């Protein structure tokens, strides 16, 4: 039996412990608030007039050290968007496919080994990725970029296209009378396959002949960033797919659905918001990455021509902040200093919004599955 004093001590200890934990938690929350406040505080002095706002968001002339200086950040905002789009195009489909494979296709004992290996991608320091991009990937793109692109194009698209052709010819034949069905399916399949094959070949040849003058470009940065965002995508999406549970799959099989139907029509839609959240997290990973884009993107502050030309160098917000900080910091209070904070604010607001959306999505998945 406890004495009264011991009881009081225990209560005191509990109070202290809880208070300490609360303090630590609120400190980390305060840190977020203060980061936002301090960045905003240094960002707003840049926008001294409407002209500055218009220049920042509307002009592509980025000459911060020239006299007179020009702070048009449009091409840089665009560069960030383009590289992030490219990274998302790599990471999201690939990551979703890998997540599906991990959660529903691979047997458990293999999955045990595959998932940690994928997650290991996240443990490689970004400067190592950047070094690879600059020293290995960029020269390779310059020397045989066309053939590399063409082979990648064929490897990725051939299975997808032929799967689609198969499904389409099946669907088309299903409408016909039973007598001609087998023949019709074969004919439609042959025709579509020939057309698709011809298109693949032509487009591939076009890519094959491409000359890439500079290997540090949006494509390079986007591919490497996509690779870096992959573990986030795989990990979160796989968790979402797992969370849909065995019952859902069993119910679908019981209704006579095949594994493909179960996956595409039941499991993926059920995990939809979780997958979306995974995509958003992957995008945030890509948009905030600095070292790789500084080394791999070429850092030319211009909008590519045409805008989707991934083979042109681009400059991103993060790389600009990292690259210019040393110099701008020496003249604290200058417009160049504040414009970098304005860029940081744009990034911060973007990722806060993304974060909120993904939290919301994840919460929705959890609620729906409960």
């Amino acid at each position: 039996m406890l004495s009264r004093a011991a009881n009081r001590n225990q209560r005191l200890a509990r109070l202290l412990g809880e208070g300490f934990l609360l303090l630590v938690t609120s400190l980390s929350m305060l840190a977020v608030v203060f980061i936002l406040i301090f960045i905003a505080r240094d960002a707003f002095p840049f926008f001294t007039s409407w002209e500055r706002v218009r220049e920042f968001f509307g002009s592509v002339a980025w000459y911060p050290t020239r006299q007179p200086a020009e702070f048009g950040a449009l091409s840089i905002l665009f560069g960030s968007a383009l590289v992030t789009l490219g990274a998302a195009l790599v990471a999201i489909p690939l990551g979703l496919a890998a997540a599906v494979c991990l959660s529903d296709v691979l047997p458990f004992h293999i999955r045990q080994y595959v998932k940690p290996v994928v997650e290991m991608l996240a443990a490689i320091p970004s400067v190592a990725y950047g070094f690879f991009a600059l020293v290995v990937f960029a020269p390779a793109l310059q020397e045989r970029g066309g053939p590399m692109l063409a082979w990648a194009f064929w490897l990725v698209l051939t299975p997808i296209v032929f799967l689609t052709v198969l499904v389409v010819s099946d669907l088309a034949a299903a409408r016909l009378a039973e007598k001609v069905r087998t023949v019709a399916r074969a004919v439609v399949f042959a025709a579509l396959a020939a057309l698709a094959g011809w298109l693949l070949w032509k487009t591939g040849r076009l890519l094959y002949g491409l000359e890439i003058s500079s290997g540090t470009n949006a494509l390079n940065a986007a591919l490497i960033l996509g690779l870096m965002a992959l573990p986030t995508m795989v990990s979160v999406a796989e968790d979402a797919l797992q969370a849909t549970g065995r019952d859902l799959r069993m119910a679908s099989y019981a209704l006579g659905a095949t594994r493909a139907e179960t996956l595409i029509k039941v499991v993926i839609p059920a995990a939809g918001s979780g997958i979306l959240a995974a995509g958003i997290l992957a995008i945030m990973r890509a948009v905030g990455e600095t070292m790789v884009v500084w080394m791999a993107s070429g850092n030319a502050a211009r909008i590519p021509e045409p805008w989707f030309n991934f083979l042109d160098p681009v400059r991103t917000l993060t790389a600009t902040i990292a690259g210019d900080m040393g110099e701008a910091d020496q003249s604290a209070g200058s417009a160049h200093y504040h414009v970098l904070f304005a860029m940081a604010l744009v990034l911060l607001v973007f990722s806060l919004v993304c974060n909120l959306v993904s939290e919301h999505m994840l919460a929705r998945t959890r609620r729906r599955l409960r």
Partner: protein
Amino acid sequence: MKKQILIAGLMALSLTAAQAAGDPKKIVVDGSTTVGPIAKAFAEYYMKAHPDVNITVSESGSGNGAKGIINGACDVGTLSRAMKTEELEAAKGKKRNPVQHTIAFDGLAVVVHPSNPVQSLSKDQLRDIFTGEIKSWQEVGGPNLKIVVISRDTNSGTYETFHEQVTKAGRITDRAEYVGSNGAVRQRVQSTPAAIGYVGLAFTEGLKPVTINGIEATPENVLAKKYPISRGLFMYTAGEPAAGTALGDYVNLYKAADGKKLVAEQGFVPVQ
């Protein structure tokens, strides 16, 4: 570990000793980002030999180096240009006498890929390449390749030198790619057949330097002031520093053999 503690202890001792003597021997250096690395290398070298002297080196731009000498905020002002007349007059108005020490020269080699047949460029052609007027190597007698312009980040003194000496009035083309170090320029130019870049004279290994206005980028030509992309790097002090004092020894390090080695290690041309 023990050794480190010993050294730390010794340093603390010597510091207190120096302070007790009323002579903190603190040297404040401020100014150019280009000269900064030299000033830092000198400071490191000097402090190793004289642990009682404390030298702080800031890099806030040549203008601030001059300002520091004028209003006495620093002992040594580092400048990548000579002081302007207004600055000299302002200093005189404050009864200060800025003394110029030319500690090194900064010469930039213009480099291309070893396979590029272009041997020489005029300074005007070089400017037009970097401002984007000339877009293909064909226009300067090379192969039919789109020129890939590689520049240092606007942060660096190397960029500052190049910009001042070559593209001064114009804008560097928005196609220019920016990289973070001399080594990165070398890496990019070495692996890109259509590239052109500029590096400190010490970084041309594995690359092909082109002649500018027919003059080779050699330390001799830089010293003789023949080579067109070069400039002097200066330290300024208020009055001639007395020999034997920490300040005098520090500023005059550039004349010593070790000082010249330090200058060369930073990629600059030591004075003769």
